[in-house]
């Protein structure tokens, strides 16, 4: 072991232990982006105020997320003696007073808000957190610190085994590190699953110097926020992973490219980089080893294709973030045309675990062909939108039922999108697929980066296609005609079908586009039609019904429906007329009429006067 590191880690652990043995109660509030969206900042202020006003013997710290995103703000309370920690949920600002009184002042528990006991014994009313249905079967390795440590305090990371994997790698030859990564079987988590060890080996064998590392934290797939959970919950894990990759590849500098929609991730990564530098873990002569590696947090400015690795490189280089033509590949000519390795946040974050615990431990978590654990975020038609970490191989249905608690209101599942706008849609019949790479590859798509979006029977598949193709159109960089014109054409046809103008020949046109667009330069263009391709495979009748019968079975496409007043005397109608944004609801005698030409099918009237306004098919 490196002596300097031993000293740093020991000091950190001493401070961490001292804080935990302070004889004060510890309140740890999750303050991530989801918590902030649910009033977390106000909760924090209210907690601080109440604790100060009452002169309580309580320390308050902030942490990242436990993954219970739909129940934020979550907060854990560790007893003064340090023998018992309980995690609570939904501590919105209005509940703080009651919470402080019963939990902190009266030293009781609030079973109705308790998620479970983190440390200590369960009681009659509060069970163990590990037994909570949402936690059962989860294996928290990447997320081990999330929710438990202050991400802005490097001591906390160091006290929990942090940077030990890196220190091991300091004494290893690059070949040996790469050998270990290959042995673990770690595949890239950004979408394609390419073995990380092999990619690192490309860079190790590059001929030019200096070499660079890039961490892809662009997380552009809407509905995916696993990288955000890691950056906001345990930023040092990513830094440590990049350090290990640097040792394996002799890289001197790294860039963490974070989308601008993630201000808190940017802030926490910056704080972490700064702290790592202060402790001598980044910069020149790291821990006296003679090795140099430093990190730059680089902020994006809103572009999906900047998540594509060569688009990202162009973006840092100071050009428009247009994906490059490959070859050359980044390992040959990346940043400033020098050898570069790009990996996803979660890929790097696994490296410290492999180094610390060995390849066998790391890959032994399941016998699936895809190794290790994977984080998934679940959203859309689910009761519990949140973030989980599980071994590969669990079925999609289990993910939905067990962690998402099923679809809202019991509406049957119609399908799901496994990983981002380029990954396509699958129907509910495919919900028994195991969440691993092969079954998705066999069906012509990628499992993707971990954002799984479920949709139920109320959703029109044509609407979904319009949305995803519209996204691809908006975000096309414009280099390839196949991509920017192809997506545009697809959206036009989809809109036409969705407003009653579909033609029999449209389905052949799609086939044409599916073929033509595969000739685009990058996956953005060549995979953009995956959604339509798979929608035609699984939901062809829905397209046919729209085209032949001019009827939308889901009665949700604006172009296929009309709104009608069917209960003239309803007292809610005046309010409906008042809310209508186009003044389409007009008085007619003693009742109201909807002027169809003015109506934009927004549905506001039906929300306000659900018993008086009816949605009808427009053409049948």
């Amino acid at each position, binding site marked *: 072991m490196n002596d300097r590191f031993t000293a740093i880690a020991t000091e950190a652990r001493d401070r961490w232990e001292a804080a935990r043995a302070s004889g004060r109660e510890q309140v740890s509030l999750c303050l991530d982006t989801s918590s902030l969206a649910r009033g977390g900042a106000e909760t924090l202020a209210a907690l601080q105020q109440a604790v100060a006003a009452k002169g309580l013997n309580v320390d308050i710290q902030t942490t990242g997320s436990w993954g219970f*995103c739909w129940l934020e703000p979550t907060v854990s309370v560790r007893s003064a003696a340090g023998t018992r920690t309980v995690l609570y949920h939904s501590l919105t600002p209005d509940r703080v007073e009651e919470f402080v009184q019963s939990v902190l002042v009266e030293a009781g528990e609030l079973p109705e808000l308790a998620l479970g006991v983190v440390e200590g014994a369960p009681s009659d009313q509060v069970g163990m957190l590990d037994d909570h249905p949402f936690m059962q079967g989860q294996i928290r390795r990447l997320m081990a610190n999330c929710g438990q440590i202050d991400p802005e305090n490097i001591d906390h990371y160091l006290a929990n085994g942090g940077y030990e994997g890196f220190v091991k790698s300091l004494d290893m030859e690059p070949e040996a590190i790469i050998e270990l990564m290959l042995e673990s079987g770690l595949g890239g988590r950004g979408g394609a699953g390419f073995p990380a060890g092999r990619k690192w080996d490309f860079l190790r064998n590059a001929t030019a110097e200096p070499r660079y590392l890039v961490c892809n934290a662009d997380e552009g797939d809407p509905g995916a926020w696993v990288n955000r959970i890691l950056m906001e919950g345990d930023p040092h894990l990513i830094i440590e992973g990049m350090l290990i990759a640097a040792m394996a590849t002799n890289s001197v500098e790294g860039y963490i490219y974070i989308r601008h929609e993630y201000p808190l991730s940017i802030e926490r990564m910056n704080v972490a980089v700064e702290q790592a530098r202060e402790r001598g873990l980044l910069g020149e002569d790291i821990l006296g080893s003679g090795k140099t590696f430093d990190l730059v947090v680089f902020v994006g400015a809103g572009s999906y294709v900047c998540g594509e690795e060569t688009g990202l490189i162009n973006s840092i280089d100071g050009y428009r973030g247009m994906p490059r033509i490959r070859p050359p590949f980044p390992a040959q000519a990346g940043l400033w045309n020098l050898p570069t390795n790009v990996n996803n946040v979660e890929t790097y974050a696994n490296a410290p675990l492999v180094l610390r615990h060995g390849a066998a431990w790391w890959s032994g978590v399941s016998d699936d062909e895809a190794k290790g654990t994977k984080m998934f975020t679940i959203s859309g038609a689910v009761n519990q939108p949140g973030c989980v970490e599980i071994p590969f191989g669990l079925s999609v249905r289990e993910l939905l039922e067990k962690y998402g608690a099923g679809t809202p209101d019991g509406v049957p599942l119609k399908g799901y999108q496994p990983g981002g706008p380029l990954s396509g849609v699958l129907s509910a019949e495919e919900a028994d697929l195991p969440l691993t790479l092969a079954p998705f590859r066999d069906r012509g798509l990628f499992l993707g980066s971990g954002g799984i979006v479920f949709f139920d029977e109320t959703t029109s598949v044509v*609407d979904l296609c319009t949305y995803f193709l519209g996204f691809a159109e908006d975000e096309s960089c414009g280099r390839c005609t196949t991509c920017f014109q192809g997506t545009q054409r697809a959206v036009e046809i989809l809109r036409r079908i969705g407003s009653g103008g579909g033609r029999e020949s449209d389905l052949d046109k799609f086939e044409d586009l599916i073929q033509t667009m595969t000739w685009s330069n990058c996956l953005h263009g060549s995979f953009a039609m995956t959604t339509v391709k798979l929608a035609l495979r699984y939901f062809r009748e829905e397209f046919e019904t729209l085209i032949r019968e001019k009827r939308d079975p889901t009665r949700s496409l604006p172009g296929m429906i009309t709104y009608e007043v069917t209960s003239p005397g309803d007292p809610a109608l005046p309010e409906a007329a008042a809310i209508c*944004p186009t003044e389409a609801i007009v008085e007619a005698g003693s009742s109201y009429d909807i002027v169809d030409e003015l109506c934009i099918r927004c549905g506001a009237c039906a929300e306000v006067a659900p018993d008086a306004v009816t949605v009808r098919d427009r053409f049948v």
Partner: protein
Amino acid sequence: MAAEPTTRELRELVAEYEFERGHLLPALIEIQEHYGYVSREAIEVLARQLRTTPALIYGAVSFYADFRTEPPPEREISWCSGPACRLRGGDRIREALQRTLDLPLDGQSEDGAYGLRLGQCNGTCSEAPQVWVDGEVVGGLTVAGAVALAREVKGDA
């Protein structure tokens, strides 16, 4: 946020950026953070500073959705375009917002009092459907709620 940027101020602001690759985006972000937008003048000043052409810089400014070329409106509704929001009526909310404000996405009123922007999912999908009003999340929105919100932002309420 400062008013009309002057050339001198702009030069000072970007003085530390060099003709070195990797400086363009950070410089543009700094300009926008300072002034709220990237003006024509700023593009020219930055081009001189980085020893490149205004065309290259404008190319980048127009490529990235986050950059504005005119001062931001006083109040702004940013609409989440993501899938979870879409599945819960997000697109009808967009229609209603556009009609109520009489603006396209990424448009703003002539007097700069209010605007509407296309926002991207940031993984707070538990709040779907949502918008951000001046940066604050308003979640669990209904279409009727969105109309009321837009009227309030517009000053019609």
